[in-house]
């Protein structure tokens, strides 16, 4: 049975946190699950995550998204972006509450494979997204940086990372 082992968590307070990095991620699991419950300081601020200090000034990150706003559904490929986005294209949307983004990163330490993931993001006022991601690196993931194009994370935002493995 796969188990969720909490590796680290943080809760944002105040208005000065623009970035959070989980470093020293244990290599003792098979998969990682990153649970973000967040809100950027402005709805135009695109959140994203990066790995192992790769800042995305290349073509390493891409996301395929299926996005619905309740009226239309569109599928898009996003490349040459700074990291993995929960809602590429339309922005994060307006919400008065924290929004969930759950990212499943399979085989995060297997150096024979490019890093890939599936995720789900929900803003019940604006969008619901199903996404797949790739980071074109075979490096084991040892750190995850959560940031946004500008602004800060609002108070109450939480980021939690879990390790999964067979028990």
């Amino acid at each position: 049975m796969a188990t969720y082992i909490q590796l680290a968590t943080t809760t944002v307070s105040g208005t000065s946190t623009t970035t959070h990095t989980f470093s020293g991620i244990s290599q003792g699991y098979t998969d990682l699950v990153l649970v973000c419950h967040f809100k950027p300081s402005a709805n135009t601020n695109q959140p994203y995550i990066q790995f192992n200090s790769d800042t995305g000034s290349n073509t390493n990150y891409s996301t395929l998204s299926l996005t619905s706003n309740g009226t239309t559904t569109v599928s898009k490929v996003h490349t040459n972006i700074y990291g993995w986005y929960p809602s590429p294209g339309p922005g994060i949307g307006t919400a008065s509450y924290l929004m969930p983004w759950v990212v499943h990163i399979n085989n995060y330490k297997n150096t024979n494979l490019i890093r890939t993931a599936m995720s789900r993001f929900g803003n019940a006022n604006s969008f619901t997204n199903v996404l797949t991601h790739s980071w074109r690196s075979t490096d084991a993931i040892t750190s995850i940086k959560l940031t946004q194009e500008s602004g800060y994370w609002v108070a109450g935002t939480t980021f939690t990372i879990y390790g999964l493995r067979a028990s």
Partner: protein
Amino acid sequence: MAMKLIGTASLPSGNTSGSTGLTITGIPQTYKDLLIIASLRTPRAGEQDGVGFALNENSSTYAYIGIHWNGGVTNQNTNYESMWAGAMHASANAASLYNNHEIYIPNYTNSLNKSYIQNSVANSSISSNASQLSMTANVYTTNTNAVTSFRLQSATANGLTQYSAVWVYGIN
């Protein structure tokens, strides 16, 4: 701690729930997130019904946006029915056909509005057009209370069929 089963409920053979469906109460407040897994079916006539999901057994007020795919067409809707959280099979389908349902609620103990994600799969035995893979983003805006209970039910008050079951896991 890790992922731990903290509650389960099911309908025994021969039993069909009333409109209240399956309820889990007394959820411990010692975890970070909740993962709810369910296997549901309704005696409603026809091929399909919506799943209703009520936090703290409160049926108002919710908002959601959903994506639904039946293998050929992708649809979407918003606030079609209060508490709408996915689809399940109804009586016109093969008797042993139940849906596969998952709801993830982060930060269920905090004092903010509860937002969550649900996925469900209901493959019809009759028509591919009645099959549905669904994902919704939901928010519960009635109050900001911690989640201490929930109810899964027919969104149209048609009840649930025998063997319908739900499991809730605390994650930390």
